[in-house]
Protein backbone atom coordinates (compact mmCIF):
# COMPACT_ATOMS: atom_id res chain seq x y z
CA UNK A 1 0.00 0.00 0.00
CA UNK A 2 1.33 3.44 -0.92
CA UNK A 3 1.32 5.61 2.22
CA UNK A 4 3.11 8.56 0.70
CA UNK A 5 0.93 11.66 0.89
CA UNK A 6 0.44 14.14 -1.92
CA UNK A 7 3.00 16.96 -1.97
CA UNK A 8 2.14 19.58 0.62
CA UNK A 9 3.32 22.73 2.37
CA UNK A 10 6.28 20.90 3.86
CA UNK A 11 7.96 21.54 0.51
CA UNK A 12 8.02 25.30 1.00
CA UNK A 13 9.25 24.88 4.55
CA UNK A 14 11.87 22.44 3.23
CA UNK A 15 13.14 24.99 0.71
CA UNK A 16 13.18 27.70 3.39
CA UNK A 17 15.09 25.57 5.88
CA UNK A 18 12.15 25.65 8.30
CA UNK A 19 11.76 21.90 8.90
CA UNK A 20 13.24 20.04 11.82
CA UNK A 21 15.62 17.18 11.12
CA UNK A 22 12.97 14.45 11.22
CA UNK A 23 10.63 16.28 8.83
CA UNK A 24 13.50 17.06 6.51
CA UNK A 25 14.46 13.39 6.36
CA UNK A 26 10.87 12.48 5.57
CA UNK A 27 10.69 15.00 2.74
CA UNK A 28 14.07 13.87 1.44
CA UNK A 29 12.63 10.36 1.26
CA UNK A 30 9.55 11.49 -0.65
CA UNK A 31 11.69 13.47 -3.08
CA UNK A 32 13.92 10.49 -3.70
CA UNK A 33 10.98 8.20 -4.40
CA UNK A 34 8.37 10.39 -6.03
CA UNK A 35 8.44 12.31 -9.30
CA UNK A 36 5.25 14.04 -8.16
CA UNK A 37 7.04 15.46 -5.12
CA UNK A 38 10.01 16.47 -7.25
CA UNK A 39 7.79 18.22 -9.79
CA UNK A 40 5.99 20.12 -7.05
CA UNK A 41 9.30 21.09 -5.46
CA UNK A 42 10.55 22.44 -8.79
CA UNK A 43 7.40 24.50 -9.27
CA UNK A 44 7.49 25.96 -5.79
CA UNK A 45 11.19 26.65 -6.12
CA UNK A 46 10.55 28.47 -9.38
CA UNK A 47 8.02 30.78 -7.73
CA UNK A 48 10.26 31.29 -4.71
CA UNK A 49 13.25 32.18 -6.89
CA UNK A 50 11.11 34.53 -8.96
CA UNK A 51 10.04 36.42 -5.83
CA UNK A 52 13.49 36.48 -4.33
CA UNK A 53 14.90 37.67 -7.63
CA UNK A 54 12.69 40.75 -7.79
CA UNK A 55 14.81 43.89 -7.88
CA UNK A 56 14.51 46.45 -5.10
CA UNK A 57 11.81 48.86 -6.15
CA UNK A 58 12.94 52.43 -5.61
CA UNK A 59 10.77 55.33 -4.49
CA UNK A 60 10.29 58.23 -6.88
CA UNK A 61 13.04 60.85 -6.91
CA UNK A 62 12.49 63.35 -4.12
CA UNK A 63 10.25 61.10 -2.03
CA UNK A 64 12.76 60.67 0.79
CA UNK A 65 13.67 64.34 0.77
CA UNK A 66 9.97 65.08 1.24
CA UNK A 67 9.62 62.51 4.01
CA UNK A 68 12.70 63.76 5.85
CA UNK A 69 11.92 67.45 5.37
CA UNK A 70 11.33 68.86 8.87
CA UNK A 71 8.45 71.01 7.63
CA UNK A 72 6.70 68.11 5.94
CA UNK A 73 7.23 65.79 8.89
CA UNK A 74 6.00 68.41 11.33
CA UNK A 75 2.95 69.18 9.23
CA UNK A 76 2.15 65.50 8.87
CA UNK A 77 2.53 64.82 12.60
CA UNK A 78 0.48 67.92 13.40
CA UNK A 79 -2.23 66.91 10.98
CA UNK A 80 -2.45 63.55 12.66
CA UNK A 81 -2.43 64.85 16.20
CA UNK A 82 -5.12 67.41 15.37
CA UNK A 83 -7.34 64.84 13.75
CA UNK A 84 -8.79 63.27 16.92
CA UNK A 85 -9.48 66.75 18.32
CA UNK A 86 -11.16 67.80 15.09
CA UNK A 87 -13.29 64.67 15.15
CA UNK A 88 -14.26 65.30 18.78
CA UNK A 89 -15.08 68.95 18.08
CA UNK A 90 -17.12 67.98 15.02
CA UNK A 91 -19.04 65.36 16.97
CA UNK A 92 -19.81 67.86 19.72
CA UNK A 93 -20.99 70.44 17.19
CA UNK A 94 -23.29 67.90 15.54
CA UNK A 95 -24.69 66.89 18.94
CA UNK A 96 -25.41 70.53 19.88
CA UNK A 97 -27.05 71.16 16.52
CA UNK A 98 -29.18 68.05 16.93
CA UNK A 99 -30.37 69.22 20.36
CA UNK A 100 -31.24 72.68 19.01
CA UNK A 101 -33.13 71.25 16.04
CA UNK A 102 -34.94 68.75 18.25
CA UNK A 103 -36.01 71.48 20.65
CA UNK A 104 -37.48 73.44 17.74
CA UNK A 105 -39.27 70.49 16.18
CA UNK A 106 -40.55 68.52 19.17
CA UNK A 107 -43.20 70.46 21.13
CA UNK A 108 -42.36 70.97 24.75
CA UNK A 109 -44.97 69.82 27.29
CA UNK A 110 -44.78 73.30 28.83
CA UNK A 111 -46.05 74.81 25.63
CA UNK A 112 -49.25 72.72 25.50
CA UNK A 113 -51.85 74.98 27.00
CA UNK A 114 -55.00 73.10 28.02
CA UNK A 115 -58.02 75.15 27.01
CA UNK A 116 -60.17 74.07 29.90
CA UNK A 117 -62.98 76.58 29.49
CA UNK A 118 -63.46 75.77 25.84
CA UNK A 119 -63.37 72.04 26.53
CA UNK A 120 -65.82 72.44 29.33
CA UNK A 121 -68.19 74.44 27.16
CA UNK A 122 -68.06 71.97 24.32
CA UNK A 123 -68.65 69.14 26.73
CA UNK A 124 -71.62 70.91 28.22
CA UNK A 125 -73.10 71.48 24.80
CA UNK A 126 -72.54 67.89 23.84
CA UNK A 127 -74.11 66.49 26.98
CA UNK A 128 -77.03 68.85 26.75
CA UNK A 129 -78.09 67.24 23.48
CA UNK A 130 -77.28 63.65 24.42
CA UNK A 131 -78.72 61.23 26.89
CA UNK A 132 -75.39 60.09 28.22
CA UNK A 133 -76.38 59.21 31.82
CA UNK A 134 -73.20 60.00 33.75
CA UNK A 135 -72.92 63.44 32.26
CA UNK A 136 -76.51 64.09 33.17
CA UNK A 137 -75.41 63.85 36.80
CA UNK A 138 -72.99 66.73 36.39
CA UNK A 139 -75.66 69.23 37.23
CA UNK A 140 -76.11 67.57 40.63
CA UNK A 141 -72.50 68.01 41.65
CA UNK A 142 -71.36 70.85 43.78
CA UNK A 143 -68.03 72.15 44.88
CA UNK A 144 -67.34 71.41 48.50
CA UNK A 145 -64.27 72.56 50.39
CA UNK A 146 -61.94 69.93 51.62
CA UNK A 147 -62.10 69.63 55.35
CA UNK A 148 -60.05 67.60 57.72
Amino acid sequence: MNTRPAPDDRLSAYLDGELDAAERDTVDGYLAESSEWRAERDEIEFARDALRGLPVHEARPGFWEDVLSPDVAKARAGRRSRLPRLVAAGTAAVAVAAVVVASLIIPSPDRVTPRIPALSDSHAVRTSVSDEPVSQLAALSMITPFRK
Partner: protein
Amino acid sequence: MAGGVPTWEEVARDHGRFLYNVAYRLAGNDSDAQDLVQEALLRVRKGLERYQPGSLEGWLARIVTNVFLDEVRRRRRRPADSFPEDPDWVIPPAPAADEVSTGFSDEVQAALAALPEEFRSAVVLCDVADLPYEEIAESLGVPVGTVRSRIHRGRRLLRNALVSTGETA
Protein backbone atom coordinates in the same frame (compact mmCIF):
# COMPACT_ATOMS: atom_id res chain seq x y z
CA MET B 1 21.98 56.79 17.43
CA ALA B 2 21.68 56.90 21.24
CA GLY B 3 22.02 53.65 23.19
CA GLY B 4 21.46 51.48 20.14
CA VAL B 5 18.05 52.93 19.39
CA PRO B 6 18.01 54.93 16.17
CA THR B 7 15.98 58.05 15.56
CA TRP B 8 13.16 57.78 13.07
CA GLU B 9 15.16 59.96 10.65
CA GLU B 10 18.02 57.45 10.84
CA VAL B 11 15.56 54.64 10.25
CA ALA B 12 14.18 56.44 7.21
CA ARG B 13 17.62 57.25 5.87
CA ASP B 14 19.28 53.90 6.50
CA HIS B 15 16.40 51.48 6.02
CA GLY B 16 13.96 53.47 3.91
CA ARG B 17 14.89 51.61 0.75
CA PHE B 18 14.08 48.27 2.37
CA LEU B 19 10.88 49.66 3.88
CA TYR B 20 9.73 51.10 0.58
CA ASN B 21 10.45 47.89 -1.30
CA VAL B 22 8.40 45.81 1.15
CA ALA B 23 5.58 48.39 1.02
CA TYR B 24 5.59 48.36 -2.77
CA ARG B 25 5.50 44.56 -2.96
CA LEU B 26 2.57 44.52 -0.55
CA ALA B 27 0.61 47.37 -2.10
CA GLY B 28 1.42 46.75 -5.74
CA ASN B 29 1.69 50.42 -6.70
CA ASP B 30 3.76 53.46 -5.82
CA SER B 31 0.94 55.66 -4.62
CA ASP B 32 -0.21 53.22 -1.95
CA ALA B 33 3.39 52.29 -1.13
CA GLN B 34 4.17 55.94 -0.37
CA ASP B 35 1.18 56.14 1.97
CA LEU B 36 2.17 52.89 3.67
CA VAL B 37 5.73 54.08 4.20
CA GLN B 38 4.68 57.41 5.65
CA GLU B 39 2.19 55.79 8.01
CA ALA B 40 4.77 53.15 8.96
CA LEU B 41 7.32 55.87 9.79
CA LEU B 42 4.80 57.60 12.02
CA ARG B 43 4.32 54.32 13.89
CA VAL B 44 8.09 53.88 14.01
CA ARG B 45 8.43 57.30 15.60
CA LYS B 46 5.80 56.45 18.20
CA GLY B 47 7.18 52.97 18.84
CA LEU B 48 10.91 53.68 18.96
CA GLU B 49 10.86 53.98 22.75
CA ARG B 50 9.64 50.40 22.95
CA TYR B 51 12.00 49.09 20.29
CA GLN B 52 14.37 46.42 21.55
CA PRO B 53 17.61 46.47 19.56
CA GLY B 54 17.56 43.45 17.30
CA SER B 55 16.42 42.87 13.75
CA LEU B 56 15.45 46.41 12.81
CA GLU B 57 14.40 45.45 9.31
CA GLY B 58 12.29 42.62 10.69
CA TRP B 59 10.61 45.14 12.97
CA LEU B 60 10.06 47.55 10.08
CA ALA B 61 8.64 44.80 7.88
CA ARG B 62 6.19 43.89 10.62
CA ILE B 63 5.10 47.50 11.05
CA VAL B 64 4.56 48.14 7.36
CA THR B 65 2.70 44.83 7.00
CA ASN B 66 0.41 45.78 9.85
CA VAL B 67 -0.20 49.17 8.23
CA PHE B 68 -1.03 47.38 5.00
CA LEU B 69 -3.41 44.91 6.65
CA ASP B 70 -5.08 47.73 8.60
CA GLU B 71 -5.65 49.53 5.32
CA VAL B 72 -7.04 46.35 3.72
CA ARG B 73 -9.50 46.00 6.61
CA ARG B 74 -10.44 49.66 6.41
CA ARG B 75 -11.17 49.35 2.70
CA ARG B 76 -13.20 46.20 3.28
CA ARG B 77 -15.37 48.14 5.71
CA ARG B 78 -15.85 50.77 3.00
CA PRO B 79 -16.75 48.73 -0.08
CA ALA B 80 -16.43 51.69 -2.43
CA ASP B 81 -12.67 51.66 -1.79
CA SER B 82 -12.23 47.92 -1.50
CA PHE B 83 -9.54 45.86 -3.11
CA PRO B 84 -10.80 43.08 -5.39
CA GLU B 85 -10.77 39.89 -3.36
CA ASP B 86 -11.12 37.10 -5.85
CA PRO B 87 -7.74 36.47 -7.46
CA ASP B 88 -9.42 34.98 -10.49
CA TRP B 89 -10.81 38.28 -11.62
CA VAL B 90 -8.13 40.65 -10.44
CA ILE B 91 -6.62 42.60 -13.26
CA PRO B 92 -3.23 43.82 -12.13
CA PRO B 93 -2.76 47.54 -12.67
CA ALA B 94 -1.02 48.42 -15.88
CA PRO B 95 2.37 50.02 -15.35
CA ALA B 96 2.37 53.79 -15.63
CA ALA B 97 3.68 55.26 -18.84
CA ASP B 98 6.85 56.47 -17.18
CA GLU B 99 7.64 53.08 -15.70
CA VAL B 100 10.23 51.13 -17.57
CA SER B 101 9.15 47.57 -18.16
CA THR B 102 11.53 45.02 -16.72
CA GLY B 103 9.86 42.05 -18.37
CA PHE B 104 9.81 39.07 -16.06
CA SER B 105 9.88 41.23 -12.92
CA ASP B 106 6.71 42.97 -14.08
CA GLU B 107 5.03 39.62 -14.60
CA VAL B 108 6.06 38.46 -11.14
CA GLN B 109 4.93 41.73 -9.57
CA ALA B 110 1.56 41.50 -11.34
CA ALA B 111 1.11 37.92 -10.16
CA LEU B 112 2.08 38.95 -6.63
CA ALA B 113 -0.38 41.85 -6.66
CA ALA B 114 -3.14 39.44 -7.67
CA LEU B 115 -2.62 37.19 -4.64
CA PRO B 116 -5.16 37.45 -1.82
CA GLU B 117 -3.77 39.73 0.88
CA GLU B 118 -3.20 37.01 3.48
CA PHE B 119 -1.07 34.98 1.06
CA ARG B 120 0.68 38.06 -0.29
CA SER B 121 1.63 39.26 3.20
CA ALA B 122 3.10 35.89 4.14
CA VAL B 123 4.99 35.53 0.87
CA VAL B 124 6.35 39.09 0.95
CA LEU B 125 7.52 38.76 4.55
CA CYS B 126 9.22 35.49 3.65
CA ASP B 127 10.67 36.13 0.19
CA VAL B 128 11.10 39.91 0.14
CA ALA B 129 11.71 40.80 3.80
CA ASP B 130 13.43 37.45 4.44
CA LEU B 131 11.85 36.88 7.84
CA PRO B 132 11.80 33.43 9.47
CA TYR B 133 8.42 31.72 9.80
CA GLU B 134 8.21 32.38 13.52
CA GLU B 135 8.56 36.14 13.06
CA ILE B 136 6.04 36.08 10.23
CA ALA B 137 3.61 34.24 12.47
CA GLU B 138 4.11 36.85 15.18
CA SER B 139 3.65 39.68 12.69
CA LEU B 140 0.45 38.28 11.27
CA GLY B 141 -0.91 36.96 14.56
CA VAL B 142 -1.37 33.42 13.26
CA PRO B 143 0.25 30.05 14.10
CA VAL B 144 3.44 28.99 12.33
CA GLY B 145 1.54 26.18 10.60
CA THR B 146 -0.78 28.75 9.05
CA VAL B 147 2.19 30.75 7.84
CA ARG B 148 3.68 27.63 6.25
CA SER B 149 0.40 26.90 4.49
CA ARG B 150 -0.07 30.49 3.28
CA ILE B 151 3.46 30.72 1.93
CA HIS B 152 3.09 27.44 0.08
CA ARG B 153 -0.32 28.26 -1.35
CA GLY B 154 0.82 31.76 -2.24
CA ARG B 155 3.81 30.45 -4.14
CA ARG B 156 1.68 27.88 -5.91
CA LEU B 157 -0.85 30.54 -6.97
CA LEU B 158 1.95 32.74 -8.12
CA ARG B 159 3.52 29.93 -10.09
CA ASN B 160 0.16 29.13 -11.73
CA ALA B 161 -0.31 32.79 -12.63
CA LEU B 162 3.12 32.90 -14.23
CA VAL B 163 2.38 29.70 -16.16
CA SER B 164 -0.83 31.23 -17.48
CA THR B 165 1.11 34.23 -18.77
CA GLY B 166 3.73 31.96 -20.34
CA GLU B 167 6.50 32.83 -17.85
CA THR B 168 7.63 29.36 -16.90
CA ALA B 169 11.10 28.13 -16.16
